[in-house]
């Protein structure tokens, strides 16, 4: 049944106001002992937001009796109850008689031992127990009674001891000391939270009281959509390529052949990159066709290309001694998941070879792509079986290494990276090959930011490109700069299903030039 104290907290604010009008300050523990502190706080906050009251919170620890202690406080300790039963029985009691008198086997068992220890009882005749003193002092009960009344005990050692005996536990109690606020009144006036169309049409806005806006909190959630951070960085890269006159390559083709992914790039058939450990091979479908034109506007000479590639590997051609090993067609026709988008660049350059510019030669071209590639890697914090490769290709006549380096300076400058250093490196399809480094202030060292080079003549001339057309190629991963930029340590938290959606939703716009 509900009594007055269990009244819904809805009128608690009014009660508080009423209590304050009679007495100030008030302590919640005294005036509203049975309300939960959360209820009180809710009501007080409501009043405080209208400046009708102010309050302070008082945290206190109180000692509370456990169930066993409540019983002791009411009936005495186990040993005292044993003593009392024996004292009233003149001839003493047997253990079973004692149990019957006390009415609780457990109390007798524990109390008997303690009473013996305190020499309150002794063994009498015929196995009976007798009281050995006239009166005792039941200290435990007295201590518990003090705590029951005052919620504490003057001697902290006693509380500690009782806590250890699991008779008492400490409880955090929150009280409020409440005083009148500047706008104290007995009635809560209705405050408007917002200006509405109704108020405008009725004119109520002129008289209404408005609740102050909380300028300390965030505004309302927008339930906004969001683009993925990697795609935002991809967009920036793409813009940079467009600014510099690049055509996007058709990289929407994951399955490649050994020919396009490796052989055409002058990667020998025994190269470690072609190991099962590194490359995903396809079991179904089984094998590819030999390269051939797949659209009417493709005028490429695929037959000679195939033969040229075989010869340049096997016997050498175009001034190269080749790798001198028996080149296997079967290996070339194996299907793979592309390990780099350079497989597509290769197809593009081969198509370029059959194009004729105004001077009858293949015209200069600039290609780029940003797309997924696949490696049969063991997955860890920095490696996934999939990642995005950013790749650029420039084909032109009379290109020199100085031009490649200058281009890289401009390209990386657009994303706020300056002062590049170039290190000689090895790559089977570029010669010279240059690793691109830049000094990273945060890491205080040179950091590799990409790879570049001039494609080998063995690769280009086999396509039918003229000897004096040189081709720059460079590449970097999309994930690495993104991880550095957003301080993501685990690639799986960026690409793949283990991403945190909140990260996507809260990730700021990408402005690469602002580092």
């Amino acid at each position: 049944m509900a009594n007055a104290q269990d009244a819904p907290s809805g009128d608690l604010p009014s009660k508080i106001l009423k209590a304050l009008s009679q007495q100030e300050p008030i302590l919640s523990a005294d005036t509203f002992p049975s309300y939960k502190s959360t209820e009180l706080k809710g009501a007080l906050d409501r009043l405080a937001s209208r400046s009708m009251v102010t309050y302070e919170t008082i945290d206190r620890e109180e000692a509370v009796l456990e169930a066993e202690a409540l019983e002791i406080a009411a009936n005495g300790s186990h040993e005292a109850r044993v003593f009392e039963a024996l004292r009233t029985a003149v001839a003493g009691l047997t253990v079973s008689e004692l149990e019957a008198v006390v009415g609780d086997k457990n109390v007798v068992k524990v109390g008997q031992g303690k009473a013996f220890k305190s020499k309150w009882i002794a063994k009498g005749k015929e196995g009976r127990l007798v009281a050995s003193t006239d009166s005792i002092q039941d200290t435990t009960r007295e201590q518990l009674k003090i705590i029951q009344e005052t919620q504490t005990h003057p001697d902290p050692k006693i509380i500690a001891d009782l806590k250890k005996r699991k008779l008492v536990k400490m409880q955090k109690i929150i009280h409020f000391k409440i005083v009148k606020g500047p706008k104290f009144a007995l009635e809560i006036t209705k405050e408007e939270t917002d200006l509405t169309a109704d108020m405008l049409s009725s004119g109520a806005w002129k008289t209404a009281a408005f609740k102050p806006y909380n300028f300390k909190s965030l505004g309302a959630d927008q339930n906004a959509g969001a683009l993925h951070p990697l795609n935002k960085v991809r967009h920036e890269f793409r813009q940079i390529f467009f600014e510099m006159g690049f055509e996007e390559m058709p990289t929407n083709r994951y399955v490649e052949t050994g020919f396009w992914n490796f052989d055409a790039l002058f990667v020998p058939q025994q190269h470690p990159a072609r190991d099962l450990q590194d490359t995903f091979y396809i079991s179904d479908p089984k094998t590819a066709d030999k390269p051939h034109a797949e659209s009417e506007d493709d005028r490429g000479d695929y037959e000679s290309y195939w033969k040229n590639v075989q010869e340049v590997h096997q016997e050498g051609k175009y001034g190269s001694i080749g790798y001198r090993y028996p080149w296997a067609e079967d290996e070339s026709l194996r299907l793979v998941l592309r390990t780099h988008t350079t497989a597509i660049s290769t197809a593009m350059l081969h198509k370029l070879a059959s194009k004729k510019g105004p001077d009858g030669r293949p015209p200069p071209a600039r290609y780029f792509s940003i797309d997924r590639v696949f490696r049969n890697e063991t997955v860890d914090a920095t490696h996934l079986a999939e990642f995005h490769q950013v790749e650029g290709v420039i084909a032109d006549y009379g290109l020199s290494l100085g031009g490649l380096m200058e281009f890289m300076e401009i390209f990386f400058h657009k994303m706020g990276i300056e002062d590049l250093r170039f290190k000689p490196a090895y790559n089977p399809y570029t010669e010279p090959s240059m690793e691109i480094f830049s000094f990273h202030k945060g890491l205080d060292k040179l950091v590799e930011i990409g790879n570049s080079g001039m494609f080998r003549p063995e690769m280009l001339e086999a396509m039918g490109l003229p000897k004096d057309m040189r081709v720059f190629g460079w590449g970097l991963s999309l994930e690495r700069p993104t991880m550095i930029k957003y301080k993501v340590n685990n690639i799986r938290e960026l690409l793949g299903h283990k991403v945190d959606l909140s990260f996507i939703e809260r990730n700021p716009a990408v402005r690469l030039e602002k580092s």
Partner: protein
Amino acid sequence: MPTISVDKAELYKALGQEYTTDEFETLCFEFGIELDEDTSNSERPIVNGKQEAPQLKIEIPANRYDMLCFEGIALMLNIFREKTPMPNYRLVTPKSGELEIITVHPDTLKVRPYVSGSILRNVKFTQESYDSFISLQDKLHQNLARNRTLVAIGTHDLDTIKGPFTYEALPPKDIVFTPLNQKKEMNGEEMMAHYENDKHLAKFLHIIRDKPVYPVIYDSQRIVCSMPPIINGDHSKISLNTTNVFIEMTGTDRTKLEIVNNIIVAMFSQYCAEPFTIEPVKIISEHNGETRQTPDISPRVAQAEVDYVNNCCGLSETPERICELLKKMCLTATPSSSSKNILDVSIPPSRADVLHQCDIMEDVAIAYGFNNLPRTSPNKSSTIAQPLMVNKLGDIVRMEAAMAGWSEVMPLILCSHDENFAWLNRKDDGSTAVRLANPKTAEYQIVRTSLLPGLLKTIRENKKHSVPIKVFEVSDVAFKDVSLERKSRNERHFAAAWYGKTSGFEVVHGLLDRVLLMLKTAFLTHEEGLEDKKGLDYEVRQDHQKVDGYWIEEIDEETFFQGHAAAIYLRVGGKQVRIGEFGILHPTVLEKFELRYPVSTLEINLEVFL
């Protein structure tokens, strides 16, 4: 890239100069190797009660087999720093005038057809050079020799065996000897069993295990030198005190076989009493025309065009100056007598990486210093920028979906077969998905044919996120297509998924309408479009003309909750095609993806809008 550990103090002694770590790093950077680690200040292992001396761990480019040991690194850096000239390697016939001989039996064709050999006389090893000799063989086995498949090396104390030698191939049972560091004799079959779980050798057994005959090299007394590519005999093993070293190599790749021979003798002939001398071995192999003397250490002479080199590097150096630069890269070049524009370049046997004049050109650039090369404008010609149309289309849809309040996700393209089929209550007809042959985990079995598994997995990993979750992806799936050269094609899809306490079916439907509206595709209502006919032959009547647009039709497919799924049809230019479907996922699908709340999905093919 292989990483070689060298003793720091020893290397600096060999270089005749102390370096700070930074200085040495810079030297490596210019030359094109990479200092991975200087262990001076790190905890080093204690071997035989002695702490290891500080090491430099140096990464070597994968084609510089001549730098896979201390000797090679020291030599190449000294030549680069112009401290030492390129050594002059010489073949020396023994005083007797008789070369050691290895006679090859035709049966070796069945298993490992090629053999090569060489002899180093009066070698004096130290513990360091001996260790380096062993280590170089390991590195060559790992790298160039592709884990002994292409080439395997055996080294022997020549004083314990006596030529002429024979290279044969015999049934495994007939090959009996005590393998290196073993106590008892075994035959070939027993050895296969013995080494099955060996930490070092087990990985090589497959190379010959199932062959009818195993390769074996005998001396004139039928002492087994080695059973390549598995193990040498214990009898002829080399030690620190060995002075005459017999090196034999067998393999399946003739070119790499000779490269390995050249590298080993080029690196270790310096320890011969007469440095850089090598005693050749005669190979008699009539059946395949491979009779010859090995190693052939004569330099290969190639030609390089001066204007090609200058042009590529952006330089205008004289032929003489280019020759000077090449010297630093151990290439000996002289201006040709035939043409002013030609250099005759003599390439030492250890530089197997030089294949074309572009390799010579690169060496000029490295010797000059990449970072010193003059910069030129990269803009030779103007070109026109152009986006790929399918990407442009995809970006439009991505923007519209995000503006409609959906979040973009990027799941993986590879997935398990079950995720793509069984978990979605879809059947694999065997002609749809591209299957991987060699994935390392079951997570990557096929290339996805639908974007749904990725979306659902992303939701599964984000169950802590407040609901509703609204995610989308625009990306490619791949299908088998036997009509194409690569037997497969990609298709650009758009997919979205809603996850919340209610199904979100109408929201997903609305997203479809919104995206198609933005793609200027009209909705054809039931009345306009469907009439009474079923199937694909819809008569959309508007002035008795078929109009373009899309319509939806209820479907009963196991992926979806019955009565809450529809196929989306599109008519463009009078041609109609089903472009996808949307619906509430079937509760059994949710269970498979461990999702507690209802999910509605939408997936369409975007390429029809191109």
